[in-house]
């Protein structure tokens, strides 16, 4: 490709020496080789946000800071209607049918389009949504909902108990291929409709997490007319009863919602009644962190979700922006250890890994101080969290070494321990969300004589690798406002094809988890989950890392935005100052 070749090519052509074919061949080499290379690199590396993990699961830990969960509150009197808000998301939803999509980012959009039966307030309590009253039977097998009347879907059809029945049946219908909502319904059996305002939801077994699930947009009530008319079109043309109506979706570009002028059934957790203030909300998609931030700073958008840790401090101290932060309940960022693959089959090894991990260093150094260490499988704000986990395995590098030494793991010439001919080598299917601290963790474990082999992969490949026990560990995090999420990760029935990557099968733990899922008494559930957490920590099935902080950066001109219990944005009260 140097001047010689090009010159020779040109002269060969001009003098008729070469055929057109050989010239084209040479030119092809030049043209393809150079631009081709950057594309290859792009495909390999770069940000791969956890699309496949999807769901209410989020593997992108945010930054730290104090927990300010709402923008400056203006009294309702000062808020005037109008204004258009553009929000930058970090992913594009795959579809907006709550029965089908598993993505947290879909939930972000759907919260505005659909109403749930009940809302969960910031304090964790349930308040009326589309249901004015609800009552669980004493055996926990059914819930009777008394529904609001005079509520309409965006297509003009009336909301009633049949719509509730349809929505729930649609979720469990195998043809819907539910990505996540079916999980929230658990042992759902059917719904009975006695009159337009009464719906009785019946379960095969008691299901304690139901109300929490019913408060999420994944169980938002859909218009039966619209879904029945064309289910496939509904995926991209959602109809609900929410305070915003769907307007359009330009693929890979934006989704636009407009105010629902008929909305007057808002919940008590919001600051005002009637319709929303904003005329329009548009969602744009930026998978690249720096671009998203640039979009905020240049005014392309006025609200972004997820600010990189390295930029968080700067944006927080800029008065042009308000930053909302909050830790998401559920599973924090943790490493799950496969108990069926050596050397993590050994309890001593798993405990040593916990002692060897310096979470504080990870948080302060790799995460720019933008998070808080986690000490157990549940984040502290999750209902059912047991404080007892905090006393396990404080960081102690020398203790890690001692524990291993005593168990017969002797350090070799290169500092890595071995026992009975087996090298203390742990493999990790690492995903981009862990890039910030991967090498730091490797260095920490090395001090204890453990070799951590980092295998970089996309999220989909990483999940498959740990599922098939091709690696010892993988990271996971999962947003959940109910401790039942522990069943997803630790119930033995979820070992094949599910997320129980530790593959630890213990009938006692299974019993506890199943009982806790059926117990309707909060205190009893907390007790049972407390015991589960104790088993998990006793067996050192995981290495807890840090809490997942949601960070939202909003132009200060927009006020009234709050983070809900699960740290999604509530836009109903949003208005321009």
């Amino acid at each position, binding site marked *: 490709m140097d001047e010689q070749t090009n010159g020779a090519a040109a002269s060969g052509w001009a003098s008729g020496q070469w055929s057109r074919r050989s010239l084209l061949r040479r030119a092809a080499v030049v043209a393809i080789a150079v631009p081709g290379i950057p594309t290859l690199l792009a495909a390999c590396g*770069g940000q791969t946000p956890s699309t496949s993990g999807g769901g209410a699961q989020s593997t992108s830990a945010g930054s730290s800071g104090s927990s300010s969960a709402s923008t400056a509150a203006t009294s309702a009197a000062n808020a005037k209607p109008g204004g258009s808000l553009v929000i930058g998301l970090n992913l594009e939803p795959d579809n907006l049918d709550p029965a089908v999509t598993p993505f947290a980012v879909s939930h972000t959009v759907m919260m505005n389009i659909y109403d749930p039966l009940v809302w969960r307030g910031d304090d964790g309590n349930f308040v009326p949504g589309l249901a004015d009253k609800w009552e669980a039977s004493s055996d926990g097998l059914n819930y009777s909902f008394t529904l609001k009347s005079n509520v309409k879907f965006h297509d003009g059809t009336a909301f009633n108990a049949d719509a509730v029945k349809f929505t729930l049946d649609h979720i469990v219908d*195998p043809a819907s291929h539910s990505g996540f909502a079916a*999980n929230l319904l658990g042992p759902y059996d059917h719904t009975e409709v006695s009159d337009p305002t009464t719906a009785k939801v019946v379960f095969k077994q008691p299901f304690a997490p139901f109300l929490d699930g019913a408060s999420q947009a994944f169980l938002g009530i859909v218009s039966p007319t619209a879904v029945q008319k064309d289910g496939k079109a509904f*995926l991209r043309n959602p109809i609900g009863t929410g305070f915003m109506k769907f307007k359009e979706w330009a693929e*890979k570009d934006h989704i636009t919602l407009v105010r629902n002028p008929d909305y007057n059934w808002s919940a008590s957790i919001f600051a005002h009644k009637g319709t929303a203030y904003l005329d329009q909300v548009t969602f744009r998609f930026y*998978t690249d962190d720096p671009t998203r931030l640039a979009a905020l700073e240049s005014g*392309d958008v006025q609200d972004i979700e997820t600010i990189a840790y390295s930029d968080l401090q700067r944006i927080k101290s800029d008065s042009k922006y308000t930053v909302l932060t909050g830790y998401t309940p559920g599973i924090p960022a943790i490493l799950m250890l496969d108990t069926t693959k050596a050397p993590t089959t050994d309890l001593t090894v798993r405990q040593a890994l916990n002692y060897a991990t310096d979470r504080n260093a990870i948080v302060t150094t790799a995460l720019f101080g933008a998070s808080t260490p986690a000490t157990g499988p549940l984040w502290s704000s999750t209902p059912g969290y047991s404080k007892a986990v905090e006393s396990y395995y404080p960081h102690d590098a020398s203790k890690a070494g001692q524990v291993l030494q005593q168990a017969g793991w002797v350090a070799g010439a290169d500092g890595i321990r071995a026992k009975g001919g087996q090298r203390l080598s742990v493999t990790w299917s690492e995903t981009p969300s862990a890039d910030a601290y991967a090498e730091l963790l490797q260095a920490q474990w090395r001090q204890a004589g453990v070799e951590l082999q980092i295998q970089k992969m996309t999220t989909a490949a990483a999940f498959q690798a740990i599922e098939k026990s091709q690696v010892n560990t993988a990271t996971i995090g999962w947003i959940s406002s109910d401790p039942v999420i522990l069943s997803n990760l630790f119930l033995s029935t979820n070992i094949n094809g599910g997320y129980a990557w530790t593959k630890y099968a213990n009938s006692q733990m299974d019993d506890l988890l199943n009982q806790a899922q059926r117990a309707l008494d909060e205190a009893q559930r907390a007790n049972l989950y407390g015991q589960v957490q104790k088993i998990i920590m006793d067996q050192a099935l995981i290495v807890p890392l840090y809490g997942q902080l949601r960070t939202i950066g909003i132009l200060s001109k927009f006020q009234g935005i709050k983070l809900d219990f699960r740290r999604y944005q509530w836009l109903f009260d949003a208005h321009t100052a």
Partner: protein
Amino acid sequence: MAQYVARRLVAMVPVLLLVSILVFLMIYLTPGDPVQIMLGQSGASAAQVAQVRHELGLDRPLPVQYLKFLENLLSGQERSIATQQPVVSEFLGLFPSTLQLAMASLVIAVALGIALGVLAATHPRTWVDYLSMAVSFMGVSVPNFWLALLLIYLFAVQLNWLPATGGGSWRQLVLPAVVLAVQQVALIARLVRASMLEALQEDYIKTARAKGLPERAVRLRHAFRNALLPIVTLLGLNFGYLLSGAVIVEIVFARPGIGRLIVDAIQAKDFPLVQGAILMTAVVYLVVNLLTDLSYAVIDPRIRY
């Protein structure tokens, strides 16, 4: 000429078949399972996952799946697993945006590249020559995502002259087109320079000068026109690459386009969408190549098909 075109069109078919088979095989060999991704957190049992896999036809033998795929694609019925929308309409919906970007960056690259190349060729081995080659060389060395972020920071955030992201308006086209163009300028400039230098050695140039033609006419009307063929070849091949979607630029600038379509589909293991989109890209590539070849007949009257 018509016969030639017909022959070329027929020759496309085996190429496309081969591409489709290769793509089909490749995506099956990479790890990740689309049904798992779809149903991952629904609490679906292994039996349910198997059921969905059966419904989507993913448990049939590969050759059967391949034939079904071809049949569906040709009738426009093939649907993306993730969005359930027809693959063909997804591709065609995003193609105009990529086409816009490709054309805009080609225009910029051609203008700059030819200018630099001609300048260098007509002042060989002077500072003009060295400078233009250095500038174009820098262009191809700079990583495009870095340049993209730099331009966004400078023009969108600091100066606020241009929007940072998105597609649709011509103002949003400027920065992405520039980033893409910068990399092509080097290739074009060097080829133009070399080509022109050779052309300027020819005897007919001496004749033209002897006739008393102004130097400008000598360079442009005679030397440049004869140097054009290799340049057109390069442009044709480059345009094909651009049309397949300059992925990084689309991602960084959050522009809709088929590059992003394909990358997102690959990550979601959305087999039908990946296969369909790559196949359609191959068609575009082949058509552009054909047009490039046909343009030779226009540029050089000596060439007959």
